[in-house]
């Protein structure tokens, strides 16, 4: 084993390789590593943030749901109230209408009765006169005995 110029050749090659490594190998690879490290850190951050946002969103959904539920309950209650009110109103109207119709009918009936009575009375007067004529055998002057006849009719 003898030393020769190979050692100088090795020193030169080593220097060149170190230089090339410094220039073309180390910087791009470490840069890529650092970049990836940053990306992973950012990704983890983003995941954290997303999880937090999700929790927030769930919270707000919960709140919104609660609110709408309450609102729906209110609306239903109002609707129920309104419905019963309408039913009540309708009932009242119907009752009033019924009363009115009854009153009108009663009045009509009364009137009919009265007119029938009037007619009967008139006829009774005639009948009475006729009856009396027959009984008396003489005619009764309607005009002379008008007062009497009317009194009779009124008594019937």
């Amino acid at each position, binding site marked *: *084993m*003898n*030393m*020769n*110029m*190979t*050692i*100088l*050749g*090795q*020193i030169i*090659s*080593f*220097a060149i*390789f*170190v230089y*090339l*490594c*410094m220039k*073309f*190998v*180390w*910087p*791009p*690879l*470490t840069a*890529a*590593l650092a*970049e*990836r490290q940053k*990306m992973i850190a950012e990704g983890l951050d983003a995941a954290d943030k997303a999880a937090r946002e999700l929790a927030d969103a769930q919270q707000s959904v919960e709140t919104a749901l609660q609110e709408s539920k309450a609102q729906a309950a209110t609306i239903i209650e109002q609707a129920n109230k309104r419905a019963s009110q309408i039913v009540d109103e309708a009932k009242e109207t119907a009752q009033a209408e019924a009363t009115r119709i009854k009153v009108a009918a009663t009045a009509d009936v009364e009137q009919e009765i009265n007119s029938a009575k009037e007619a009967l009375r008139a006829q009774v007067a005639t009948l009475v006169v006729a009856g009396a004529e027959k009984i008396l055998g003489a005619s009764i002057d309607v005009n002379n005995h008008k007062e009497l006849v009317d009194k009779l009719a009124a008594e019937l």
Partner: protein
Amino acid sequence: MASGMTSSEYIAHHLTNLTYGKHPVNGWSFAENGQQVVEMGFMSINVDSMVWSVGLGAFFIWLFSRVGRTATTGVPSGVQNFIEMIIEFVDDNVKSMFHHKSAVIAPMALTIFVWVFLMNLMDLVPVDWIPHLAGLMGIHFMKIVPSTDLNVTMGISFSVFFLIVFYSIKAKGVGGFLAELSLQPLGKWALPFNLLLELVGLIAKPISLALRLFGNMYAGEMIFILIALLPFWAQWVLSVPWALFHILIITLQAFIFMVLTIVYLAMAHDHH
């Protein structure tokens, strides 16, 4: 094992680099045997070590820069994932041991880790395949594991050594660095002793780095070569367990080289 060779010739053949250099007699030529390699001395170069190490380093740069260019910040693909894992592993190590600002340390640690690992990995290629192929092409010697060549490990460790000295001076100034070398551990009255001790300590860093890696890989390679001396039908009994165990050694040695480099450079930045 190639026919017509004794065991010692086979081993020596597998441990000889393809060396090109200035031979006193033949001039600039490829060494034909170990003797000529020795005769060439310093004015020679291990072509196989250079080709394989530069090739593996280029492969590392090509693969990693390609992934770096196409790196997505989304879900990484298989290769990108694997490479990011290595980058993060190296980056974690650097950050836990080196607390100063430097644009060089982390890329250098990555280069050392991957490059040394790839060079060690060649050890797992069966020892005869590539040398035999090279032999067919007329190349006599071919050592494909660059980290079993002391020149290669020394080359890296002395680069680290230069950086240790450079950063020591940069962080503490020339005076501070000299003071660190000479005024401790025993104070200024034992200056020569301190200097000797600290210089040995300083030199021991790159030497131990290089020898540790070289020794481990050389020993591992040697065991593979010895296993290859067995009859072909018996080799797997030893070579498979050793290869599995060697995967651990390969990774561990690359890791140790990287970690010690970081530690030494962190020490260079620190004030005592």
